[in-house]
């Protein structure tokens, strides 16, 4: 994959997609359109937040994943998973039992992603201290937020902290730990369990590295099902040694305020991408007070609400908070051999400057962009302002913008078309053909078995 092209993990299943407006309506960047009865995602605007997946009533949007069978080709089969995973399991299963199940599935080594958190915490603190100009410092933990800032708030890219996220680091951490045990690099297979599609994209096309060192990605819901099948109620072996580098801060890191609690005199944590957008609008206008640190997450309840998480997000948070209390704070482990000897890891922490990728301009040429904008403003006068989505665009304004870019036409608006019919400007047959082009042939015929007939899923 060329680094210029971004990897997006979301795919639309054309067999399942019934052509409705749910995904299009919730997309925070207006990246979705419907045509020919199918939703399509515009890659340059997609931030991988996964909101469309959540909204789809027929589960037509899915995330590709690597085959779990692939692990068998390695001697050291390592599963890397975020601590939040533990939180989604029913309470009756202990950490030992969950770890035992992962080993039973076929992994030889188990690493929770947040183990090297102490190093990251120190590094972020240092970065914030040394770059006082770019405040508020914005966390780069959530890849969907980083991408949102790149495309929609380009002036804020300078505020992004130039440090990588735990999921970028743990692979290096695992390799260095296994090498200490005598493993050769080519014998190690690293498999990352992800709570969301945003992290897939960032693991598959990491910034500043030519290729990912992770050998495969496993979706959280898939591993959940596998573990639930393999898990055993009986007494499991003590696996606490495998968690000796895990800390309280690490366990809480991916939850809301998990980062914010650690940094700055004044810090804020905002979860839910629509909340984040409202706040960034203000931040961009300098309408906010002096804040030192901003933790922004695309999902409600942060990663506990990740699109591929199975448990109830609030129960997940509750379990993790209780779990965290049993673990030592990070400073107690700062002298542990694994953390102390990880010089190499410290270098890996530094991330490249994140460049703006504005995706909302109407035209590369300013003069033409201005003309298009003026034209869109005139078109808006004719559209009804109902924002119904029946044209295949999320709202009237978006349709007008699509029109000036040659991607839509006046007759896409069903109300305009209705008026034209009334005025005898267009014949009824042609009008129907027009709507069928958007929503699919025979889409409007009575059929009790049509896809999504009763909005399954609600």
């Amino acid at each position, binding site marked *: 994959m060329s680094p210029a092209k971004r990897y997006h993990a979301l795919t639309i299943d054309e067999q399942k997609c019934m052509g409705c407006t749910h995904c299009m309506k919730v997309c925070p960047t207006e990246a979705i359109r419907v045509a020919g009865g199918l939703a399509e995602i515009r890659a340059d605007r997609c931030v991988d937040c996964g909101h469309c997946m959540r909204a789809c009533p027929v589960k037509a949007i899915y995330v590709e994943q690597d085959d779990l069978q692939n692990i068998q080709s390695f001697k050291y089969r390592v599963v890397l998973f975020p601590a939040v995973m533990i939180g989604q399991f029913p309470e009756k299963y202990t950490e030992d039992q969950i770890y035992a199940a992962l080993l039973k599935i076929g992994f030889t080594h188990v690493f929770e992603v947040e183990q090297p958190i102490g190093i990251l915490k120190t590094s972020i603190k240092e970065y914030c201290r040394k770059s006082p100009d770019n405040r508020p410092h914005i966390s780069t933990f959530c890849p969907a937020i980083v991408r949102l800032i790149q495309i929609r708030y380009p002036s804020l890219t300078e505020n992004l902290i130039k440090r990588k996220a735990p999921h970028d680091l743990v692979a290096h951490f695992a390799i260095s730990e296994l090498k200490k045990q005598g493993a050769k690099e080519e014998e190690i297979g690293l498999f990352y369990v992800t709570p969301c599609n945003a992290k897939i994209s960032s693991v598959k096309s990491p910034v500043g590295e030519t290729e990912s060192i992770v050998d495969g990605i496993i979706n959280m819901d898939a591993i959940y099902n596998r573990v639930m099948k393999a898990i055993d109620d009986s007494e499991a072996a003590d696996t606490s040694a495998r968690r000796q580098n895990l800390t309280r801060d690490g366990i809480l890191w991916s939850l809301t305020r998990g980062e914010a609690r650690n940094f700055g005199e004044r810090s804020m944590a905002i979860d839910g991408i629509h909340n984040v957008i409202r706040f960034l609008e203000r931040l961009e206008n*300098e309408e906010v007070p002096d804040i030192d640190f901003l933790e922004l997450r695309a999902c409600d309840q942060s990663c506990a609400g990740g699109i591929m998480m199975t448990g109830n997000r609030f129960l997940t948070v509750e379990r993790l908070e209780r779990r965290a209390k049993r673990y030592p704070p990070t400073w107690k482990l700062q002298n542990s051999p694994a953390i102390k000897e990880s010089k190499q890891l410290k270098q890996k922490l530094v991330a490249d400057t994140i460049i703006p990728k504005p995706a909302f*301009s*109407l035209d590369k040429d*300013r003069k033409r962009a201005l003309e298009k*904008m003026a034209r869109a403003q005139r078109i808006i006068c004719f559209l009804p302002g109902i924002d119904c989505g029946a044209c295949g665009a999320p709202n009237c304004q978006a349709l007008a*913008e699509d029109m000036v870019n040659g991607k839509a036409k006046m007759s896409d608006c069903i109300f305009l078309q209705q008026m034209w019919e009334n005025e005898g400007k267009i014949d009824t047959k042609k009008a129907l053909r027009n709507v069928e082009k958007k929503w699919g042939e025979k889409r409007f015929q009575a059929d009790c078995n049509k896809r999504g007939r009763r909005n399954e899923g609600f």
Partner: protein
Amino acid sequence: MKLQFTIEGGNFSNAGHAASEIKKMLKQLGIEARCIRNIVIAMYEAEVNVVAHAFEGQILVDIETDKITTEIIDKGPGIPDIELAMQEGYSTASKKVREMGFGAGMGLPNIKKNTDEFYIESTVNSGTTLKMINYF
């Protein structure tokens, strides 16, 4: 392209509306982020001044290929001593306005800092007109 917005004196919950609208449009024109930031900050400060200090106002925006011209015309008490008002830290904001987080006396100086050209005219007991130009 010409645009027009109205400002309601005393209504802080609506302040910043015009600035946000303009910001969205400038992004669509592909204007450089830093430039947009300057324009939006200046505009927001001017809007808030009308809300905080005057009765009602109007914003006239003209976007051309090389620049944006904004006029903010208000009906209000006017500014008796413009030179004084332009000084950093000078403010006549009421206690109520200060409690809302405004009134540091930084608005007008900030507008000047963030615009390429800035003109201000005021008649006591009549109103104030600001004109600002930013080149892209």
